[in-house]
């Protein structure tokens, strides 16, 4: 079951060849997908050989194969994690009953919406990053970018498989629409706001893969608990790939910090910007920005949708098994309450606070990464500490939207916000500076752009100076 059949036009471990109808539907979708990839995928590298990993099995051990592949020929396909025997519903009113192998009619529309919304983020990020390859800091990073891109593409496949398989004609139309929307297009934008902002520099890319992809991880963890088993199995396998994206983000930022600190130490008293480096305050501002917009992706603090998803077992908490109570009807959650210009608190039913529960876990996970970055700074004896801003800072969605808070979480006036904004979030000047460092690509194997340190090791035992992308 876990072996992937690569002899098929669409590699899969769902025995696609025995389902002629589904096969036809997906084979019809495939050329449209390839068109989309050619048009919206990484610009300028479609014919190049890239050293990519491809899933060959859905086992957690040894599931990947590494080799040179031209991206449009990447073996996208449908891979589900192995079924868990006698799996039961992990949360909500139907807790403990057998999971569903088919979509219950009652939840059909809601599930479709959840899957479409998740699915829409996958091609969106490919579109957001499509020009980044032209300013890469190294071949190693270029390859990582493409690895992330093709896997986002495969995650789109995973969601499209569910739409085609379980949602009939509506599902097929939604699958088409996933290829029609375009990140940042005012006429036909991606569904979630954060996926319409361009990612036009590598600092943003690393921050995105660290913060925004991590939101994706938590959404997938929550969906992995779904009572709809095919969704759960699909997302569980997606999670194995997602780990690499966060690795790219975490080590990417870490290497920038390392380079800056090394150079600061070697050139005491010098402004890092004079040395062509990304200074730590600028990194802090980028962190503030990407963390806060990623927090928005979790949705409102108090949410009737979240309560209903949990109650109907469509979406659980991350690693639901770690909790004792899976019904959560009696428990309450302490939530901020903004009233008369003050932050107080109120109790809300736990089910309505599920977005916040997920966000809390996310925040802790982010903090672990930030701690690693700070250890790097401390190792170099630089007196600076990166911090996650308050969850209230710079929010556009939920309880704190439309009100201003400092990074420390204090309620401030519009005037205070306007006066301080440039100190807290990347200004035009900051972005222009960062982009000025990335005005060309570094493509000689083993060479790094001035503003980033080399990675500790290469990919899959290959050296750092391996030719990860063949450009000639």
């Amino acid at each position, binding site marked *: 079951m876990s072996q992937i059949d690569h002899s098929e036009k669409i590699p899969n471990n769902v025995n696609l060849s025995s389902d002629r109808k589904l096969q036809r539907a997906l084979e019809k979708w495939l050329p449209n997908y390839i068109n989309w990839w050619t048009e919206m995928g990484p610009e300028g590298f479609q014919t190049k050989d890239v050293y990519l990993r491809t899933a060959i099995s859905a086992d957690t051990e040894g599931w990947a194969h590494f080799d040179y592949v031209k991206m449009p020929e990447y073996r996208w396909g449908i891979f589900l994690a192995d079924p868990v025997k006698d799996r039961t519903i992990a949360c909500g009113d139907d807790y403990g009953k057998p999971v569903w192998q088919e979509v219950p009619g009652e939840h059909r*529309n809601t599930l479709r919406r959840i899957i479409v919304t998740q699915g829409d983020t996958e091609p969106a990020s490919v579109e957001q990053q499509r020009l980044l390859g032209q300013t890469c800091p190294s071949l190693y990073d270029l390859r990582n970018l493409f690895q992330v891109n093709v896997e986002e593409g495969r995650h789109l496949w995973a969601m499209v498989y569910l739409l085609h398989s379980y949602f009939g004609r509506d599902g097929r139309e939604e699958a088409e629409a996933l290829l029609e929307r375009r990140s940042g297009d005012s006429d036909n934008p991606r569904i979630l706001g954060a996926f319409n902002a361009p990612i036009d520099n590598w600092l943003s890319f690393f921050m995105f893969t660290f913060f925004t992809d991590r939101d994706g991880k938590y959404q997938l963890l929550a969906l992995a608990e779904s009572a709809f088993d095919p969704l759960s199995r699909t997302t569980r396998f997606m999670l194995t790939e997602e780990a690499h994206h966060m690795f790219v983000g975490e080590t990417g930022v870490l290497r920038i910090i390392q380079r800056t600190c090394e150079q600061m130490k070697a050139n005491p008293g010098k402004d890092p910007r004079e040395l062509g480096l990304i200074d730590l305050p600028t990194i802090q501002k980028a962190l503030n920005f990407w963390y806060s917009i990623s927090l928005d992706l979790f949705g409102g603090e108090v949410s009737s949708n979240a309560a209903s998803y949990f*109650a109907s077992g469509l979406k659980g908490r991350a690693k639901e098994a770690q909790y004792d109570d899976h019904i959560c*009807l009696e428990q309450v959650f302490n939530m901020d309450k903004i009233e008369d210009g003050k932050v107080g608190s109120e109790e809300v039913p736990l*089910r309505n606070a599920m977005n916040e529960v997920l966000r809390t876990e996310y925040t802790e996970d982010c903090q672990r990464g930030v701690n690693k970055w700070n250890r790097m700074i401390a190792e170099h004896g630089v007196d600076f500490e990166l911090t996650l801003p308050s969850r209230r800072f710079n929010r556009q969605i939920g309880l704190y939207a439309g009100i201003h808070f400092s990074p420390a979480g204090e309620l401030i006036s519009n005037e205070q916000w306007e006066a301080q904004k440039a100190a807290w979030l990347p200004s035009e000047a900051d972005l222009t500076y960062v982009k000025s460092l990335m005005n060309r690509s570094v493509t000689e194997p083993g060479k790094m752009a001035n503003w980033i340190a080399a990675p500790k090791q290469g990919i899959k035992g290959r050296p750092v100076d391996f030719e990860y992308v063949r450009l000639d």
Partner: protein
Amino acid sequence: MEPIRFETHPDRYRHWKLSFDGATAKLDLDIPEDGGLVPGYVLKQNSYDLGVDIELADAIQRIRFEHPETKCVVIAGTKDRVFCSGANIYMLGSSTHAFKVNFCKFTNETRLYLEDMTDNSGIHTVAALGGACAGGGYELAMACERILLLDDGSSAVSLPEVPLLGVLPGTGGLTRLVDKRKVRRDLADAFSTVAEGVRGKRAVEWGLVDAVAKKSNFDEALAKLTTQFCAETAERSGPAVTLKPLSPTREENATRYEYVSLEIDEEKRVANLKVSGPKADTPEDAKALRELGSDVWALKAFRELDDAILDLRFNERQIGLIVLTTEGDAERVLQSDRTIQKLAESDWFAKEILLHMKRVLKRLDLSARTVFAIADQGTCFAGSLFELLIAADRSFMLDVEDGPTLRLSALNFGPLPMGNGLSRLESRFFGTPGRVAELKEESDAIDTERAAELGLVTFTPDDIDWEDEVRIAIEERAAFSPDALTGMEASLRFVGPETLETKIFGRLSAWQNWIFQRPNAVGDRGGLTTYGTPERPKFNYERT
């Protein structure tokens, strides 16, 4: 609880932004979350409560009277990604049954007012939906002539009440879908059960909207519609009329306007509603009429009556019976009727007055209270005021020498129809239509004996019995079940043909009243009760 007031002014609007650009008026919906009429709910996502509709009704009224240059009204929203998400569910969930039904009724009347503005004043309406449009938001859009929807892959129109809440699209949504927009009923069925609604091309194919446009050419598409509408609409010449505040004097249990007084008898659960005729003759040329403006009797008296009816509906829940009386000079009422009707042929202001009278009388027809009209000495049930008497469920006329008389005018024969499309006289004599033609010949004062003979009044006690008869009738009425009376009166008032309007209100008062009382909606685990709470609704699946 603070009484709800229905008078407002654009200067005080909290939810709508009314702006004018040449012949086009724009109404932008922008509801502040903390803008609820009463505490206890947050108006998220441009969801509305009664306060929002009070402003809308006021805005439509003001466009008609104060902005004669307007040829097209655009209803749009200023919030990103959402036009209007409908009636606020937490508001519905926390409201009493009576309030819910009255709220639905008022919003319906407002939507019909919007449609009346197009049908009779020729002012066109376009709903420009720049984002999601759900439930009552879509019903509002359907009340417009044309619906333009943003085609951005996510903006949809929807009626999610059935799948989401277990209630009906309560403001005429279902009726407008099939009767007005003529959406095929199977498609309407599918549409009304999909919570997320229908967007883009499919919304056009199904007839749910008239057109879609991408963001980059949305304004252009809208401008094309409004330009076309403006081009095909005649000018409404003559200066605007400012609607002055009514400024009634409010005492405990009594409200006194210039021409209307409302006295509440809490113990008897009776409201005494008295309307007075004009104190002077109505100017017979358009210019002089315009100078009087909102002080013209026919406009002012009916505005006051409207305000009093709404006050009764929302603030006097215990009152079951309205005792309607009139006083004044019948000749002056008839002179007003003649003048307004004559001028209405050429002057928009006079026409608007007439249309407004029609609407107020409909409001009375639709009020879920018993109405008794009492014609005793000094009464003035003449012409337009005679409509009040036959709008009543029963009438009493004193039978004495030199007693009260009734007078008819041309306004009783068509210009002030009921929701069923018939005049009140046609409705009254539905079984004997010839009688209406005969009545046109009755140009003189009609005394009690003659009124009884013609079937214009119900009972005609003489002065020996009068007080007792009337008192007993009132006391008897007050003892019946108010629910039974509501159903009975609503069934009897609207005879004859069904119209969009009667269907909307008929279904509203029957189906929604029923559903709003059922455990599946308002029980411990009902759809409205559990909405937004951690619990999911639990339905009793037994069908009647």
